[in-house]
Structures are given as structure tokens and as C-alpha cells.
């Protein structure tokens, strides 16, 4: 029997809307779950997903992808990649797995919400595949690091991180709860797939796969490529949802979702990708600075897409671009100095050649961030190791849950952005973070940052040891310098001299 081509039956088959008779439409699709924003169902039916696939096609392609990724892993299992890789690269793997693997399960729940409550049949269809994608991503990114657990306990954090109160895990949970666990189907389409995935993760995974290949880690490269091809498909759920909202007079609501989504995603991206690209990636493998990457891939792409859709650039666009020059440098300083509070060993990325590179990519770096590293290097060389470690907590932003930090040294420009709300003072890293809070204070007001918890007596004993216990960091897991401080020796009797321009 001859089979019809997909395009001959797809539109009919995906039209799964019907008129309920046992319950009302509002009971079947409550607004709080759909997020339809008053746009009637027939208006949502024009939603046209740009990427169409059928279930048999999906299964066949996914099976091939899985076979590819698992066979590369099996073929290279006896390679000495793990033993021979630069410790900075191994740190990127640990940070990545811990921050991402269980987040994929959260994304699966979010896709499931779109699959059930999406107002457009096309959205439900794509999200069904998206849900299966995210399940695959979680399982892959738990299975692949598992082989390393017996050699290095920090890899156990691929699964453990989200179940802990480690500060980065709190930040990731807070962001993902906000963008897609505690949102309606429409909001998820915009905030998870459009803002987070199209804007950031899709691009990041492309870059990360290339970096892995460059570092000789072909197992990770094939894993990440395998995931990225799924992302580039299901990330397209948000675009047509925005089109429907805008065509039906909901531009203002759409704009706010986009603006909040990008703001929140940018912070995590800056922390994870920014520090990985400009510090943990061995110098010889760096293709672009994080700033160059952001300007070329992220800013350009968002500007084109937002304008094509008829949306505006977020009000904070120029401020965010200005942050490309400093925010991830400050986060790097934070993760390195508070390294016992990590599940990975941060690479300082601080050889003289690294500093020359940073100065070239970020003119003035040595006069600002370099000044702080100078003090750290002096302490390391003089054997004052204790002064390279913290004895208090950084102030944590009540939105990003990351340290409030900016430019040190001669360009010193660090500031608190406080807000009094219902008798409590909240502290923010920037005008952007504070603005996000102000958009929906009831949503955020009850969360306690790590510092709030400390002050409330939840961390006992109230010192670094108590904090490490609270974060579930066991001996053998807590972070230390990735290269065992060997890089500092380059400065012994040879203080850093900035290269002449």
C-alpha cells in the first residue's frame, strides 16, 4: 500500500482540538496553565510550527543519534582522554554536567506542560517531541559522566548538584523554576524555548561541541552535538507562539516574558560559559573571547529575531552588552576565591600568556581584575595560602542568587542595588536584576538567598565548615585550584609585566 507523503496528512493529523462536552473548555484548559492571555483558541490554531516531523521519523532519527553518541563513547572508553586532558577541560565537564544534567529533567516537565496545556495543536505536537528530547538529554548527561565517578567523586555531582544546597545549584534551580517549572505553557514557550534555548543554549552547545573537538574530547563533542540537534528543533516552539500573541494585541505581555527570560538566562550563561571560555579553556584552544562570542552569535541573533517578530530590544540591552566586559571576569574571581564551595576544581587561567590574552581581548583588564590577581599571586608565592581563601560569605543577589560583583582595581565600580519591599530589604546585582523582581514581587519575595539563610540561623555552625556541610559538599568533593597552583610559579622572581601595546 502506498504511503502518503507527510505534507499530505500532517495538517489534518495534528489538528487535535475538539469541543469538550463533559467539562467546560476553561476546565480542560485553565488559563493559569495555558497562559493563553485571553487569546481565543481559534486564534491559536494558526500557530504553524516551522519544523515538522512525524513520530516514526522522530524515532528513526533519534535512534540514529543515540547510536552515534553511544558508539563514540564505547569506542573511546579505553582512550586516555580523561587522564591526559588539561585539568581545566575536566573542570568544564564537571561544571557542565552538574549544572545541566538534572536541569534537562526539569525542561522535560516544562515540555510536558506545553504538550498538555499548549493552546495550539502544533505547539502540543512539537512539545511532545521536545519532552522526549529532554528525557534523552538528561539520561545521556547522567550516563556519560558516570564512568568517571569511580576515578573522581566530583563527577557524582552530575546527579547530586540539584539535590544539594550548593550555591550554584540554588542559583540554577531558582532560575529554572522561574523560567520553566513554575510557568504556563505559553510562558514556557517564550522563556524556555525562545529566550533560553534559541538565544543561549543552542548557541552554547554549538560552541561547546567545537571546543570539545578542539580539546580532543570526541566523546563529549559527539554527545553535545547530538543534544544540540534536538535543541535547534524544539527551540522553535516559542517563535510562532510570540507571533500569535503579537498578532492578537499581546505584544506588551510577550515583550515582558522575553525581557525577563533573557535577563535571567544571561546571568547563568555569564557564570558558566563566560568563565569556561575565557579562563578554563586552555589558551591554545580558545577561538574567541566570550565577549566576541556574545556579540557575534547571541546579540546579533536576538536583534534580528526580535525585530523580525515585531518586538523591541529589551530596555536593558546596552547595559547587558556593557556587562560583557566585566561580569564573567567578576564571577571567575568569585568561583576561584570561594573554590571550596564548588563541585569542580576551577582553573585560574592566570598564566602570563593568559593575562596578555585577556588584556588584548578586554583592554584594561590588568588594571582592574589583574590588580586582584596580583595580590592572590603574591600570597601564593609567599606561602600565605590561607589568605587566598574566604572567611565570610559574599553578598548574594536576591534574583540571580549569584554574588553581587563587578569591576575591582583601578576601575572599581561595585554597587548594591537594594529594594525595600513589604518590610524586607532585597539586594540585587544590577538594575536589571532589580527590575525583574519588580515585575512580579509576589513571585520572588519569599525566597531566601544563601546569605538570608545564614542570617536566619539555618547554617550551623556559622562558619565555612558549616556552610560546606549545608551545601552537601563532602571531603573529596570540595573544589581546589585545577592546576594545583603550578601556574603561580611563572611569577616567582618575575612579576607580571604588561605587554607593550
Amino acid at each position, binding site marked *: 500500500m502506498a504511503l502518503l507523503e507527510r505534507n499530505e496528512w500532517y495538517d489534518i493529523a495534528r489538528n487535535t482540538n475538539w469541543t469538550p462536552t463533559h467539562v467546560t473548555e476553561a476546565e480542560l484548559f485553565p488559563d493559569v496553565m495555558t497562559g493563553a492571555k485571553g487569546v481565543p483558541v481559534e486564534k491559536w490554531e494558526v500557530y504553524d510550527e516551522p519544523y515538522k516531523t512525524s513520530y516514526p521519523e522522530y524515532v528513526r532519527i533519534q535512534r540514529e543519534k543515540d547510536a552515534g553518541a553511544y558508539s563514540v563513547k564505547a569506542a573511546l572508553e579505553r582512550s586516555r582522554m580523561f587522564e591526559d586532558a588539561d585539568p581545566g577541560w575536566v573542570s568544564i565537564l564537571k561544571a557542565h554536567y552538574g549544572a545541566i544534567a538534572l536541569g534537562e529533567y526539569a525542561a522535560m516537565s516544562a515540555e510536558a506542560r506545553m504538550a498538555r496545556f499548549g493552546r495550539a495543536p502544533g505547539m502540543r505536537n512539537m512539545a511532545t517531541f521536545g519532552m522526549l528530547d529532554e528525557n534523552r538529554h538528561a539520561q545521556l548527561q547522567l550516563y556519560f559522566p558516570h564512568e568517571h565517578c569511580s576515578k573522581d567523586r566530583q563527577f557524582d555531582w552530575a546527579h547530586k548538584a540539584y539535590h544539594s544546597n550548593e550555591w550554584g545549584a540554588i542559583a540554577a534551580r531558582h532560575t529554572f523554576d522561574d523560567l520553566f517549572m513554575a510557568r504556563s505553557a505559553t510562558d514556557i514557550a517564550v522563556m524556555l524555548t525562545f529566550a533560553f534555548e534559541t538565544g543561549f543554549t543552542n548557541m552554547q552547545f554549538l560552541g561547546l561541541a567545537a571546543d570539545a573537538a578542539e580539546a580532543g574530547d570526541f566523546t563529549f563533542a559527539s554527545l553535545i552535538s547530538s543534544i544540540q540537534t534536538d535543541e535547534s528543533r524544539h527551540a522553535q516552539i516559542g517563535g510562532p507562539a510570540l507571533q500569535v500573541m503579537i498578532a492578537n494585541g499581546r505584544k506588551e505581555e510577550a515583550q515582558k516574558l522575553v525581557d525577563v527570560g533573557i535577563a535571567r538566562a544571561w546571568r547563568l550563561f555569564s557564570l558558566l560559559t563566560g568563565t569556561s571560555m575565557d579562563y578554563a579553556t586552555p589558551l591554545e584552544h580558545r577561538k574567541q573571547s566570550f565577549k566576541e562570542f556574545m556579540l557575534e552569535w547571541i546579540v546579533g541573533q536576538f536583534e534580528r529575531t526580535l525585530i523580525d517578530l515585531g518586538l523591541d530590544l529589551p530596555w536593558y540591552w546596552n547595559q547587558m552588552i556593557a556587562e560583557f566586559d566585566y561580569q564573567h571576569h567578576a564571577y571567575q574571581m568569585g568561583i576561584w576565591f570561594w573554590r571550596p564551595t564548588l563541585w569542580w576544581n576551577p582553573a585560574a587561567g592566570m598564566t602570563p600568556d593568559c593575562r596578555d590574552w585577556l588584556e588584548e581581548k578586554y583592554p584594561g583588564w590588568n588594571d582592574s581584575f589583574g590588580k586582584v590577581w596580583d595580590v592572590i599571586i603574591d600570597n601564593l608565592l609567599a606561602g600565605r595560602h590561607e589568605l587566598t581563601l574566604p572567611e565570610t560569605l559574599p553578598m548574594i543577589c536576591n534574583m540571580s542568587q549569584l554574588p553581587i560583583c563587578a569591576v575591582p582595581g583601578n576601575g572599581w565600580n561595585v554597587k*548594591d542595588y537594594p529594594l525595600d519591599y513589604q518590610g524586607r530589604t532585597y539586594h540585587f546585582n544590577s538594575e536589571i536584576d532589580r527590575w525583574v523582581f519588580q515585575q512580579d514581587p509576589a513571585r520572588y519575595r519569599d525566597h531566601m538567598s544563601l546569605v538570608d539563610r*545564614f542570617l536566619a540561623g539555618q547554617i550551623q555552625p556559622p562558619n565555612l565548615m558549616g556552610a560546606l556541610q549545608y551545601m552537601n559538599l563532602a571531603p573529596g568533593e570540595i573544589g581546589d585550584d585545577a592546576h594545583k597552583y603550578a601556574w603561580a610559579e611563572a611569577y616567582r622572581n618575575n612579576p607580571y609585566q604588561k605587554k607593550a601595546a
Partner: protein
Amino acid sequence: MAAFPMISNFQYDFLLQLVAVDTENTMDEVAAAAAYHSVGRRVAPQPGKVVRVRRQGDTEFFPRHAKLGETGIKPMETVEFIFTEA
């Protein structure tokens, strides 16, 4: 006497930090408590200079011997610590 948490924004450092002081502490003592977590760790010492205390955004410093409890600084307020000539 009462334990008093405040937020230190120390000149030339890269972040805000939690610092525990006491309402009976003078501004010089508060500055020393904040300096403990910044100077010599990430901020180079500046011999001969004095660290003065002011509210975020102010240009005027509190008197060096003023007690914290008398300044009107609230718990968990962000305070700036600035190197000045002695």
C-alpha cells in the same frame, strides 16, 4: 552590645561581602573588620592610608570614632570602605 551584620563594599575589591560587627564598634573598628576580608586577600595594602566609612552613594564619611549604634546605619545596609589620606 549587639551583633550587627552589614554589607561591605570595599574600595578596589570586586564584590560585596557579609561582615559581622557590633553596635559598640567605632567606625575605625568596623573598617578593620571589613578590611580583614579584603585587604591582603584581594586588595593590596596601602600603608599610611586610613580606611573611612560612608553610606553607599554618600561623599561624607562618618567620624572615625563614632559608634556604629549612633550612626543610623541599619543592619544589612551596604556601606563603602574607602582609603583616604591619614
